[in-house]
């Protein structure tokens, strides 16, 4: 494992950086100043050359998304997706709480590149501290004249930019980019029909780019380091460092910045401190709860978007959930199915009814009244959901369902045949799990 350079997290132990002058003293705003001297297309080309992949979950190349932005004489918007909600994901919260000015700098560069003059930072409502600190940072930029009218624009460049913080109110679906836009418009977080895509018709019907907090926080570093250095920190087509959170059954859970070529094994056993004494690895989810589960023999995979995809899962939001041999996969899936059915917005038929049905069947299995046919039925239900919905929350529910059942079929069947609770979900086991 390579040494861990600190770019995104360099100010995490530096409370002085919460103030703009402390941020500047730590080296901040260099990237923005450089960007203000470039022409917009140059900035976009640089981000493209740096292979910055969207860090909200999809891993879509950020510069390609920027390239889709519609041309218009009217307003365009940048919406920052700070609705961190994917279970196991911890990165955007710390980035906002500990280095809010870094995010603002990334926002400013992006807006400059895209000729956008209004940005909204949509922060999930429960992130009270992040909201307060980002709000405070925004106020400092306004006070210094970098934002707003009449202050000479960003660092005296004349580029006018308005930034506002907008809180969510508790809905995972608002992390879906068009669900976020609906919520920003003051409605329920119902994702919008696509096409048209937000880049053409987004917030208030205007061309809009939605970017994740971490994605934008990378941008100042791409400007200061240059594409080559940024790429060198990562792997082919996956440039830069990445924030990873390791949690679950590890001794040193936490969110850390690492080069993009760290392996899952390294994350679990070196960075995450490994398992509790006497325990062995049973399953690990690499990219937030929606990503397909991986087995112990599949963990020698580099944690970049393309490698994890090739391994049959997804890097997603890089939230690693480690499950040791105490874990009941049946109970684990049941826990997640409650999550998805609770968070389904309910707008479209397959997800609204399908997530609830999957959970109901899972509950019946957990209660000891399952039948072997239930497993194939759950897979069939997933098949009727995926591809037929307005957004991918249905897929997010289907992927764990399909992967847990397929990879732990024996355990599920044993649980069903056994008719009683085998194994528990949390730390204290009452019975050993036995696999037929």
């Amino acid at each position, binding site marked *: 494992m390579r040494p861990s350079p600190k770019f995104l997290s360099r100010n995490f132990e530096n409370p002085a950086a919460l103030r703009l002058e402390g941020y500047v003293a730590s080296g901040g705003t260099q990237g923005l100043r450089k960007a203000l001297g470039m022409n917009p297309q140059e900035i976009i080309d640089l981000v493209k050359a740096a292979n910055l992949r969207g860090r909200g979950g999809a891993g879509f190349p950020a510069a390609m998304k920027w390239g889709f932005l519609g041309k218009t004489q009217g*307003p365009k918007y940048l919406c920052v997706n700070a609705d*961190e*909600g*994917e*279970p*196991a*994901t*911890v990165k955007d*919260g710390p980035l906002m709480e500990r280095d809010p000015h870094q995010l603002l700098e990334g926002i400013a560069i992006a807006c400059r590149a895209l000729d956008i003059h*209004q940005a909204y930072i949509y922060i*999930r*409502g*429960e*992130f*009270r*501290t992040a909201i*307060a600190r980002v709000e405070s940072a925004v106020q400092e930029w306004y006070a210094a004249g970098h934002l707003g009218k009449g202050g000479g624009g960003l660092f005296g460049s004349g580029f006018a930019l308005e930034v*506002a913080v*907008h*809180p*969510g*109110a*508790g*809905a*995972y679906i608002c992390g879906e980019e068009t669900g976020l836009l609906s*919520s*920003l*418009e*003051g*409605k*329920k*977080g119902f994702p919008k029909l696509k096409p048209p895509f937000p880049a053409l018709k987004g917030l*208030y019907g205007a061309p809009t780019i939605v970017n994740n907090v971490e994605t934008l926080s990378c941008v100042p570093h791409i400007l200061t380091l240059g594409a080559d250095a940024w790429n060198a920190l990562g792997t082919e087509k996956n440039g830069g460092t990445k924030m990873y*959170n*390791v*949690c*679950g*059954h590890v001794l040193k*859970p*936490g*969110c850390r910045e690492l080069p993009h070529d760290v392996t899952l094994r390294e994350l679990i056993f070196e960075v995450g401190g490994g398992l509790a004494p006497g325990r062995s690895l049973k399953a690990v989810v690499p990219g937030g*709860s929606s990503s397909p589960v991986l087995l112990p023999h599949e963990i020698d995979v580099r944690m970049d978007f393309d490698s994890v995809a090739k391994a049959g899962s997804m890097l997603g939001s890089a*939230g690693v*959930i480690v*499950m040791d041999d105490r*874990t009941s996969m049946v109970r*684990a899936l049941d*826990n*997640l199915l*409650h*999550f998805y059915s*609770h*968070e389904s*917005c309910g707008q479209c038929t397959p997800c609204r009814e399908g997530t609830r049905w999957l959970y109901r069947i899972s509950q019946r299995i957990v209660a000891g009244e399952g039948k072997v046919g239930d497993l194939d039925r759950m897979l069939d239900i997933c098949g009727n959901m995926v591809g037929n919905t307005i957004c991918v929350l249905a897929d997010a529910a289907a992927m764990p369902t399909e992967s847990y059942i397929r990879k732990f079929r024996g355990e599920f069947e044993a649980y069903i045949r056994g008719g009683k609770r085998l194994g528990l*979900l*949390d*730390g*204290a086991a009452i019975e050993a799990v036995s696999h037929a």
Partner: protein
Amino acid sequence: MSWTLSPEMRDRFDKIVARYPEGRSQSAVIPLLHLVQEASGGSLTEAQQRAVAEYLGIPMSKVHEVTTFYSMYSLKPRGRRHLLVCRTLPCALCGCAAVSAAVRERLGVAEGEVTPDGAFSWEEVECLNHCDLGPVLQVGEEVYGGLDAAKVSALIETWSKEER
């Protein structure tokens, strides 16, 4: 029961609406409802929703859709401290069941109910994304991690003392 917008609250409303483009004041409905809920002991009445609707010039149906969709709004009374106990997988793997059980036992009320002195209420919520600290409990702005039954007890004891 009706509820009127105080001049001071109206002033705060105006400042928030100003963040959005002309004609897009509906966007402010979420932050406005947060303001009202916080100022009213943690829950919202029908009259308050109506006042926000009238201020924004949008139908009551649209405000009520918002308050019934998003988890943070409550249309039933909440305690002065409302405990959020995370129950999603990473916290579950770390023992959140014990946290819920301890909360339920120490407070003596079920999820969604308020203690007789109005001091506490609690509910299980989905991922709060502090999975590095699991299991997690949040009250207001404060997030508490690495909990077990004993730590939960201690926290509730401290809060109960502050209440008196």
